[in-house]
């Protein structure tokens, strides 16, 4: 490995291509930690937003119009306002209102840090879209299948969980795929509230070493890979869930 790093170092000396983010141990570990934060952020937000989508779609099918309207209000609010402003609102406006806890150094700090607020903000943002996506998947389930479940005495919750949801998920996987990829890309906005994710760390590195172009290329490659992995995983999921009799 050392010789590989030395080769990169010599690239810098010979051609001015500065790949310090790779050959320097400190910078490399910084960058890797930033990438791991992005991956963590993406995974947690994906899981939470899917959960919000499932619950929201369930509430939207409820008989109480007030409940339906609240869910619609939530969706319209988060879909028609900028995600960045939402994040600022959560972190800068709601954050200070939270109670303070004393950390191990004896300093009072807000209960939820920037990472947690980024998770909350992005999950609610993506969750709003997911509710719509799951709703359309649910509506694609044939009425007679639902009626058959009801005739077999399954109650509403059992019908939703055992019959409707498994089918709805399969129907809406392509749209969900798209939304989750967008979520992974939107995690870069956490830069604005100083979450040490990839873009933030990269900006620190290029400020220190003035190798903007190299960092940009590294960044773009990383995100392309991340998106590629998510798409690949979702395609595998689609294939694993496929049942005979639907699609090709």
């Amino acid at each position, binding site marked *: 490995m050392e010789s590989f790093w030395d080769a990169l170092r010599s690239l810098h000396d010979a051609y001015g291509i500065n790949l310090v983010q790779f050959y320097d141990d400190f910078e490399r570990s910084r960058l890797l930690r930033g990438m791991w934060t992005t991956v963590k952020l993406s995974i947690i937000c994906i899981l939470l937003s899917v959960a919000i989508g499932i619950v929201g779609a369930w509430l939207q099918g409820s008989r109480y119009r007030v409940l*339906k309207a609240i869910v619609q*209000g939530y969706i319209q609010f988060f879909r028609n306002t*900028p995600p960045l*402003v939402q994040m600022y609102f959560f972190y800068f406006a709601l954050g200070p209102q939270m109670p303070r806890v004393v950390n191990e150094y004896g300093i009072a700090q807000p209960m939820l840090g920037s990472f947690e607020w980024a998770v909350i903000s992005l999950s609610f943002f993506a969750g709003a879209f997911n509710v719509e996506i799951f709703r359309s998947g649910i509506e694609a389930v044939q009425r007679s299948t639902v009626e058959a479940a009801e005739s077999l005495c399954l109650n509403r919750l059992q019908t939703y969980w055992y019959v409707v949801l498994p089918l709805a998920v399969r129907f809406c996987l392509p749209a969900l795929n798209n939304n989750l990829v967008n979520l992974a890309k939107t995690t870069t906005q956490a830069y604005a509230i100083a979450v040490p994710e990839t873009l933030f760390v990269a900006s620190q590195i290029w400020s220190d070493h003035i190798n903007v172009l190299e960092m940009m290329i590294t960044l773009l490659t990383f995100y392309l890979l991340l998106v590629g992995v998510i798409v690949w995983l979702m395609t595998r999921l689609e294939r694993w869930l496929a049942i005979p009799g639907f699609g090709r």
Partner: protein
Amino acid sequence: MLGAEGESGFTATAFNRRSLGFVLAAFALILAASEAVAQIRTTGGSEGIIEALIKWTPLLLLGPPGEFGGFVLNIAVSFLAMAIGTAAGLVLGLGQISLYAPVRKMSWAVTQFFRNSPWLVLLFFVMLLTPFHLRIGGVSIPLPDWLKATFGLSLPIMANMAEIVRGAVNSIPTSQWESAESLAFTRMQTLWRIILPQCVKRMIPPWMNWYAILTMATPLISIVGVNDAMTLTQDALAAEQKTELLMPMYGLLLVFFFIYCYPIARWTIYLERKYAVRI
């Protein structure tokens, strides 16, 4: 979705009105909560929250006097980026269906690249790596920050527009191409006179959808130093130094965007329904 079948999405049904009511209630709640907080932590400030909001609104909407900034800058950037992105995306989309394999592959690669890159990264890319002036001939044209940011935002729009164009062209039945061919139209003629005019209607709803997404991405330019509504909000809050103004000011910004984007979203649904019936 919302509204009964066959009803124009632009006319609010009782259901729409109720959910809209909840959104407005949410904003009112934010205001009320801030008032409550203000009561609890009176810092001896002279103005109430509503007065402060009214005081700052002109700045947030129009920017500093004599300068181009604020919410109108966000809107202007969205228009310009959409225009550039649409034009470039049209070209890129046609490239994707080109008969020449290298052109096709290049266009596909460019589209995938810009589609799958985070918008903020592209913004940084353009901001940091484009020069401050453009030298054409002997003339040096300065490139202001907001213009560079606009270019940055137009790149993902270009890629998504290309996908919309490609999808729309592919949704026109092959029989259209065949009949045009049998009438001795060239490929270019077929494309411009027969295929694309039919595509326009089915491209409009996703196009408007991307416009809404773009508008809601414009606050990103505040991160790269442009004086848009977001930056000015933060400046205003820094000037006031009052914690009870945090929620209302950010809330006000959310309201601006909501008032602009919600009607666009409803209109998009209306257009989608209107154009969906004809195939």
